[in-house]
């Protein structure tokens, strides 16, 4: 069941009606709806999916309680088994096919490995992280283990977030799941508007930019550096509007039930440094890895001892930086693995960002700070925009590898961008997309609205807040314009959301 399909709207409508007409069993309605949604969206058989869901639930629920009932080495053992069980499930179901193929090709085996051909299981990477976070929180005694299995099940399989995140925390979700929600106009209005904004981003903006990306990156050898550069910028828009659009739909859907999920984006392309970019892009994933991977690694006895050794021998600064860089390497390695088992994804989501961050940190962000030294430093807005552009261009290096079908193609494209710059073949590319003048106009309009919306977000406001200050007539007119644009110009049913694959 796709988020852009008619069946999803019917399913959502029925669930919302039941949710508010039967307030005493709201939790069970959401749980049943989540099971239906997940089983229906399952790429494998319902029976297998039920086994998988039961296994993950029992492991998380039972592991968390057992941690409380045991002490000393037994508790450590329970924590290790539970977390390793969840990680192993993710690893096997996500990578078994790739590894099987890899082994078969390496050993030149003529064997049929179709039984290993797992279709990616939707949301597995997201809810496994949420489940691991819950088990670790209980292990760290941040709150007691939940005794009600239905609450834990709903936390793991809550249907809006099961698609592509955000990665949630049990403590924040529990209060909302257990609260009796009354039908409030604000929740419904906010939810529907947020969903509309998400559909607009995905169907009107993202799909159009995707056409340019596809034309160029399908045969990058036929295009020059300028064309590849343009296509990469288009991919930045495509990916951002696709993923953040999906998050708008997810957060809007959840708001219909009075459950507010954490934001995953905060105007990332307004970031002035690459560090800031990664704090504003896929926020919940970054926070998860920071709290559950980076901090524990940095605070481990080995790292503390290493830090002290470096401080004694090489000075205070090195003593701080060495453990930090090692934990960064661990963090980005895991983020890379999380994104997939293919080399170009690993380069794009681990090697390039980690290298950029380290270089930027080693240089003390000299470029950003240079604005303070320049004679026209009072013109900070100009320098801020230069820095924003610099961050966008650096991040585009990641996207080159995402768009390319292999690392070598990615490297060639990158080389072309710098060394093989000739005239841009804009009209030929647009002609190849068969988009037409109306489509182009929509693209320009879409990007204008998007930049304005992100500008507001960067300033701490939002389109939603701005519209709320306008008259009822104005709000309604914008709403209808959005609906007309989505229905008239939206490329419905063209492709799935990019982050579904993770």
């Amino acid at each position, binding site marked *: 069941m796709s988020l852009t399909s008619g069946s999803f709207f019917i399913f959502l409508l029925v669930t919302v009606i039941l949710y508010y007409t039967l307030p005493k069993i709201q939790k069970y309605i959401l749980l049943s709806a989540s099971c239906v949604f997940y089983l229906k969206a399952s790429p494998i058989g319902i029976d297998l999916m039920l086994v998988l869901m039961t296994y993950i639930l029992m492991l998380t629920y039972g592991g968390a309680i057992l941690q409380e009932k045991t002490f000393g080495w037994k508790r450590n053992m329970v924590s290790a088994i539970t977390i390793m069980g969840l990680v192993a499930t993710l690893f096997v179901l996500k990578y078994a096919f790739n590894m099987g193929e890899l082994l078969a090709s390496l050993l030149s085996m003529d064997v049929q490995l179709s039984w290993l051909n797992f279709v990616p299981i939707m949301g597995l990477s997201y809810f496994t992280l949420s489940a691991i976070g819950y088990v670790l929180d209980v292990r760290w*005694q941040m709150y007691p283990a939940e005794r009600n299995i239905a609450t834990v099940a709903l936390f793991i399989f809550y249907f809006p977030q099961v698609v592509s995140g955000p990665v949630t925390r049990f403590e924040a979700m529990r209060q909302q799941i257990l609260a009796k929600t009354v039908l409030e106009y604000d929740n419904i209005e906010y939810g529907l508007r947020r969903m509309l904004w998400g559909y607009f981003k995905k169907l009107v903006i993202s799909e159009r930019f995707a056409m340019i990306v596809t034309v160029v990156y399908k045969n990058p050898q036929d295009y020059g550096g300028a064309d590849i550069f343009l296509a990469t910028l288009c991919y930045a828009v495509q990916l951002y509007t696709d993923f953040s659009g999906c998050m708008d739909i997810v957060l809007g859907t959840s708001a219909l039930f009075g459950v507010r999920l954490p934001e995953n984006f905060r105007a990332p392309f307004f970031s002035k440094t690459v560090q800031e970019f990664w704090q504003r892009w896929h926020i919940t994933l970054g926070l998860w890895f920071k709290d559950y991977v*980076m901090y524990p690694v*940095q*605070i481990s006895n080995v790292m503390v001892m290493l830090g002290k050794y470096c401080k004694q021998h090489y000075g205070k600064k090195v003593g*701080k930086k060495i453990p930090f860089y090692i934990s960064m390497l661990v963090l980005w390695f895991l983020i890379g693995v999380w994104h997939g088992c293919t080399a170009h994804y690993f380069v794009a989501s681990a090697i390039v960002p980690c290298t950029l961050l380290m270089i930027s940190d080693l240089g003390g962000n000299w470029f950003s700070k240079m604005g303070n030294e320049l004679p026209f430093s009072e013109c900070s807005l100009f320098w801020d925009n230069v820095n924003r552009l610099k961050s966008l261009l650096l991040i585009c290096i990641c996207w080159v590898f995402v768009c390319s079908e292999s690392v070598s193609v990615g490297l060639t494209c990158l080389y072309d961008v710098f060394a093989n710059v000739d005239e841009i073949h804009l009209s030929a590319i647009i002609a190849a997309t068969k988009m037409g003048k109306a489509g182009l106009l929509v693209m320009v309009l879409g990007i204008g609205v998007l930049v304005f919306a992100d500008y507001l977000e960067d300033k701490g406001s939002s389109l939603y807040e701005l519209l709320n200050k306008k008259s009822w007539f104005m709000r309604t007119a914008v709403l209808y314009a959005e609906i007309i644009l989505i229905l008239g110009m939206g490329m419905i049913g063209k492709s799935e959301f990019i982050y579904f694959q993770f």
Partner: protein
Amino acid sequence: MTREEVYERLNNVFRDVFDDESITLNDEITADDIEDWDSFEHINLVVAVQDEFSFKIPMGKVVSMKNVGEMVDIILELGK
């Protein structure tokens, strides 16, 4: 150990970690009030606090402390 004693020692830890002799702590101070207090320095701070007070701060407390006041509460609790 009194709250005042904890503050005196903690002030020195903060000044050393952030290389800023002008820092004077109170309960309300958060990461937003000290320029270099980001997620990276937070862990350096925790390690320095552990060193100063000779105990290990549990991970749950490391990720959940929201201001200096909470940090002092944790130190007093662990130092009992």
